[in-house]
């Protein structure tokens, strides 16, 4: 068996978000089906990709369509790895207020990073914070 054929690589460079992000999501969803990921995984990964790319464009690149958001990913039968890199100055993810604290519950923003952590197996921002790396491990069947 050719190991390279057992990994699907999907890469994109975004300057604006639409319709490129929808096309990426469509391609990713097809990749997930091919590698046997279930609906729960598809929901989690679609959400994480949406939050990551939108954050990179809106907050990292300040919505500037002359700046690039790089998206790199690999899908295998057991694991998905995603990297999203923007051209911004970065940020300290620890400085984001906890949106679930009583005093922040009705604040309209600040939930994207939290949702990525909730749905993905690993989420890591590489300093200075403009490089996101996240992974999803397919749950083993019991």
């Amino acid at each position, binding site marked *: 068996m050719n190991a390279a054929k057992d990994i699907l690589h999907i890469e994109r460079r975004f300057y604006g978000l639409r319709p490129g992000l929808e096309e990426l999501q469509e391609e990713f969803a097809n990749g997930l089906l091919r590698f046997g990921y279930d609906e729960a995984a598809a929901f989690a990964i679609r*959400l994480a990709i949406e939050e990551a790319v939108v954050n990179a464009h809106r907050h990292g690149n300040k919505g500037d369509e002359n700046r690039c958001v790089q998206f790199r990913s690999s899908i295998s039968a057991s694991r998905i790895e995603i990297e999203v890199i923007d051209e911004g100055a970065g940020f300290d993810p620890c400085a984001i207020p906890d949106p679930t604290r009583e005093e922040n519950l*009705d604040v*309209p923003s600040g*939930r994207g990073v939290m949702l990525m952590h909730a749905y993905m197996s690993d989420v890591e921002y590489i300093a200075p914070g403009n490089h996101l790396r996240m992974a999803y491990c397919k749950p083993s069947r019991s």
Partner: protein
Amino acid sequence: MPVSLLQIRRLEGSIRVDFVEKNILDEGNLHQIEQEIRTALEAEKHPRLLICFKNVEHMSSAALGTLLALKDSIEKKSGELRLSNIDRRIYEMFVITKLNRLFSIHDSVEQAASSFSTK
């Protein structure tokens, strides 16, 4: 004028909103959705809004923010907001963010409609 992303119905004493799109993600769409709802509520003194999520398969944190902004505006006019028919995976997003404690969420449109306070 852009094509409406919502179906808005005036019921007795309340306004019901259904989504046309199955994905509520795009900021442009969210802005349009928020404006359409605000326009529908404009003339209401104490708006009672029921948002049905029956057709919705995917949402983003930006959509949660839009719902919070609408809730705030409605409550400033002493109105009431009800949400219904939320897919279990999307409901999980409300639980993770603890927004299930802030919104009045119901299994069906009928339950949501009957939960409005009687006046």
